[in-house]
């Protein structure tokens, strides 16, 4: 009797309920993003500068902005730098994040709590506040970093960290990794606690070394978490903006330290070439999709399974 009545009811829910449940989320996304994204796509096909913003007609120029973009040698340098920066940061963040998670899992309760609270505090720092502190720590004249390095025997008196692009990116990486590691650590730690101690003990009795246990048991078990965390880091690090902009504000060679976010900002808000900035944004969106496509596909397959 029950088996006879339940399936039809389920089938009816099948059609209406999921769509109804999606309405609020879809509505807010459409309301907040449809117009801006549409505007951006249309504007990317126009010549749109400050004069157009103040009411001059904006002529359609077809794909001219995109063509200029592909001819611009600087944008390719920016793309290469951004992708490199994103990959390095994402990998370093995930590696350190996993290491800290393993550490959390290995130590006693008190030490774990200390480490967790340390990470939470860093995570809770507002970006503007964190950047102010970091810029100051790396300040060339009175910065604590130079002072510390001087005291352990190096000569870093008045060393300007932001002057050369490579050392600029080193500082940026330290800051971005510092900010992103807590999220990764907590997510991975959560995954680690799901691995049953019995499995580990059994492996230990079988004589598996620590490293072997980590690569053969731990990593496969937390693979889903690792995949998602890595994907998110790649997405977030490719569009890193605030940290780079505030570091540049502190004094840096602009052209050689621009990443995609700051470059779009400079072309748009800085130079009032909004058509070009819009074209770049569309390009970056497509670039991100292409870069993450293989990854997303395997993720979707797992999801469907």
């Amino acid at each position, binding site marked *: 009797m029950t088996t006879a009545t339940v399936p039809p009811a389920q089938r009816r829910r099948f059609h209406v309920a999921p769509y109804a449940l999606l309405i*609020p*989320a*879809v509505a807010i996304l459409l309301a907040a993003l449809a117009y801006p*994204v549409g505007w951006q796509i249309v504007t990317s096909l126009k010549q749109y500068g400050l004069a157009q913003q103040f009411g001059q007609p904006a002529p359609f120029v077809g794909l001219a902005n995109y063509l200029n973009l592909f001819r611009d040698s600087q944008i390719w340098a920016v793309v290469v730098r951004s992708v490199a920066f994103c990959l390095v940061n994402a990998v370093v963040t995930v590696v350190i994040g996993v290491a800290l998670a393993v550490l959390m899992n290995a*130590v006693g309760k008190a*030490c774990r709590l200390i480490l967790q609270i340390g990470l939470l505090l860093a995570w*809770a720092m507002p970006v*503007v*506040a964190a950047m102010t502190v970091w810029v100051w720590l790396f300040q060339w004249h009175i910065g604590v970093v130079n002072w510390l390095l001087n005291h352990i025997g190096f000569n870093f008196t008045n060393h300007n960290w932001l002057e050369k692009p490579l050392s600029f990116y080193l500082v940026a990486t330290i800051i971005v990794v510092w900010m992103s590691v807590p999220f990764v650590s907590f997510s991975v730690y959560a995954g680690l606690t799901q691995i049953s101690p019995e499995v580990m003990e059994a492996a230990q009795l079988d004589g598996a070394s620590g490293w072997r246990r980590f690569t053969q048991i731990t990593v496969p078990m937390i693979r889903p978490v690792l995949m998602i965390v890595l994907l998110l880091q790649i997405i977030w690090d490719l569009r890193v903006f605030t940290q780079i902009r505030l570091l540049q504000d502190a004094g840096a060679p602009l052209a050689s330290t621009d990443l995609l976010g700051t470059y779009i900002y400079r072309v748009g808000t800085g130079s009032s070439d909004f058509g070009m900035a819009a074209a770049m944004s569309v390009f970056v969106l497509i670039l991100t*999709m292409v870069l993450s496509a293989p990854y997303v596909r395997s993720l979707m397959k797992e999801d469907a399974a």
Partner: protein
Amino acid sequence: MSTALSAAPKANRHIKVGKIIASIAAVALAIVWVFPVYWMVNSSLLPNAVLNSPTPRFLPFGGSLNNFRAVLSGGTFFPALKTSLIVTLTAVVLCLLFAFCAALAISRYKFKGRQGFVLAVLFIQMLPAEGLFIAQYKMMSSVGLLNTAIGLAGLYTAAVVPFTIWMLRGFVAGVPADLEEAAMVDGATRTGAFFRITFPLLAPGLVASGVYAFLQAWNEFTIALVIMQKESSRTLPLWLRGFVQQSNTREVDWGQVMAASSLVALPVIVFFLLVQGRLTSGLVAGAVKG
């Protein structure tokens, strides 16, 4: 028997040494991570002259609350705090509600367009926001939501909802539908079953996603910069930025800037420490599905 007896203490000692090293490493790393936060608080207690000296002072001896007094005397902090709280809490509530419904849909049902929706949710996060501000301004102005907390909260909700759906999806999938049905068999109504069985199991997940949404909305400042142009409608990050920039055109008053930063960070830190336990267990529950 005898081998086991003799081996056990040796192995124990081995494990103990390893554990001590790990503990030391954990504490050392905690210090490294917390140092910038500590430095902010330490500096906020020291006078500017000390801060501009090339010899850093690592402990706030001889410090005072003068910087905090100076920062708060402007009278602009509390209105900004109020705006920030309204915007953030609204965004968090809306976000959790919307994302929860959507997560329920995509983890409990197979329907046409499901994959497409999941993909869209992922891709929306790849949108570069730096070129959007003119359009966002025009939109908010045309519907009269410029300089309003509700308008900004709406934009934030849209910005955070995709990731929250992504996160909650795992939690909802982790709660077996059979549990609910079992309760109904025992005579509970569907609503009753949901609140008694499913909801408590989801609570840690909601906390974890809520914390994420809270952080994003609390810290955001590029959208706010354009949408909240009136002084009276400033959020805390804008207030802090105004403070830093004001200092830039005059002498950088690091002490006051650090005091202002501490004030902005304080509510988040308190909130974090309050939900700390639940947050961790929330992330644990989420990891089941990943």
